[in-house]
């Protein structure tokens, strides 16, 4: 696969985010994390991110080694279990970090709910507003990867025989996505044909990220783990022009 470019996501989220995502998804008690299960799932995500050519920051690997270390500690039968000595849970530090981080996320949400200037309320200076929208992705990267995983799984059949078409151009895929979205929002899954090749699925995924990065589409989810929807943010023709003007390096 030589068409896949390296993608650096602007909505960067870290290993703690991923762990919280997994904990929530598995409905696990944060204070009693089944290390083996979580480590396995964490590794699967890293694998998937690597497969998608997403840049995996060093922090993710540090956390991976921490998890593996914890997993090994959990396997060792604890001596002194019967004695009066309290043996410290090896997960303690990680749990504390996760709780602290979760707390911060909740505080951030709480701030987000306030009436924000230039979003909910305006003052006289707002006239010459021309603020660049920083993020058009309302969902987390991991939700998106989950959705991607489902599409890949659905198309397993194609692994048996695959005609490799090296000529997929991300730009073309972007144009076809715009075409599909021009009459209104669509579900993420709808953008993938059941019979399409793995290459095409990956190209579509990258095209979606690229469109979001360029503020052409919005990616939203209305409920946790619900369907993901995509919408055009600008007129389809303007969108197509913008895509055509993009540099060829992503093609």
């Amino acid at each position, binding site marked *: 696969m030589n068409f896949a470019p390296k993608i650096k996501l602007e909505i960067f989220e870290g290993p703690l985010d991923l762990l919280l995502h997994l904990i929530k998804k598995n409905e696990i008690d944060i204070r009693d994390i089944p290390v083996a299960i979580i480590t396995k799932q964490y590794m699967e995500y890293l694998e998937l991110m690597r497969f998608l050519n997403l840049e995996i920051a060093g922090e993710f690997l540090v956390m991976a080694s921490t998890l593996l270390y914890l997993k090994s500690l959990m396997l060792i039968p604890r001596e002194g279990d019967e004695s009066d000595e309290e043996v410290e849970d090896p997960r303690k530090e990680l749990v504390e970090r996760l709780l602290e981080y979760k707390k*911060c996320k909740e505080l951030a949400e709480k701030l987000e709910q306030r009436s924000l200037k230039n979003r909910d309320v305006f003052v006289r200076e707002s006239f010459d507003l021309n603020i660049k929208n920083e993020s058009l992705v309302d969902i987390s990267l991991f939700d998106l990867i989950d959705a991607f995983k489902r599409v890949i799984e659905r198309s397993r059949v194609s692994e048996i025989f695959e005609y490799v078409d090296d000529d997929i151009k991300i730009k073309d895929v972007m144009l076809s996505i715009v075409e599909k979205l021009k009459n209104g929002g669509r579900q993420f899954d709808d953008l993938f044909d059941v019979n399409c090749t793995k290459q095409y699925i990956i190209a579509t995924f990258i095209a979606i990220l690229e469109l979001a990065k360029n503020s052409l589409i919005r990616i939203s989810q209305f409920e946790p783990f619900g369907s993901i929807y995509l919408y055009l943010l600008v007129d389809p023709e303007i969108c197509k022009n913008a895509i055509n003007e993009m540099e060829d390096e992503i093609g």
Partner: protein
Amino acid sequence: MDRDTLKAIIEAILFVSGKPVNLDRLKDVIGEDKESIKSALQQMIDEYRKDTRGIEIVEVAGGYQMRTKTNLSEYVKNYLQVKPSKLSRPAMETLAIIAYKQPITKSEIEYIRGVDSSGILRALLERKLIRIVGKKDVPGRPLLYGTTKEFLELFGLSDIRDLPTLKDLNEISGGQENFFEQGEDVFIEPDGRGKNNL
């Protein structure tokens, strides 16, 4: 000066200012004592609350500011033809950490978030939502960050002490998970006087 004239003057000043105007400034300009200005303002705040008004007077960043009402945002946005200003999730998170734990260093922020935060800090500095407040007295003398007046304005806070506290938060989430039981004082006293702050 009678009360109605005073209210009219205050209204005119707040209208042209756009920025929050504090009591001292109003006193200097109008020449009345702070007490009467404050009580006139209080009355005005109540009057503007009526549904027939599209503007309200809000105490923000240590002063008073006229703002459009939240429920009218759709119309105002339509008129101004602007994209709503939005902070990305990581930016919001970083801002929350700084707000509640200030003064705080970059490495302390990164320990909490688990990721490199240089880019976000730069962006927040550029938007003037945070500023460098000093250097921490530890080897390397790293920079300490804190929030700004613009931060208070953005979130419609009168003072940093008005930040939502964890107690509110706990009530909202139903307190089903008692995260804050072991919490540090830092979070409860956002004004930088928590005992775990430097």
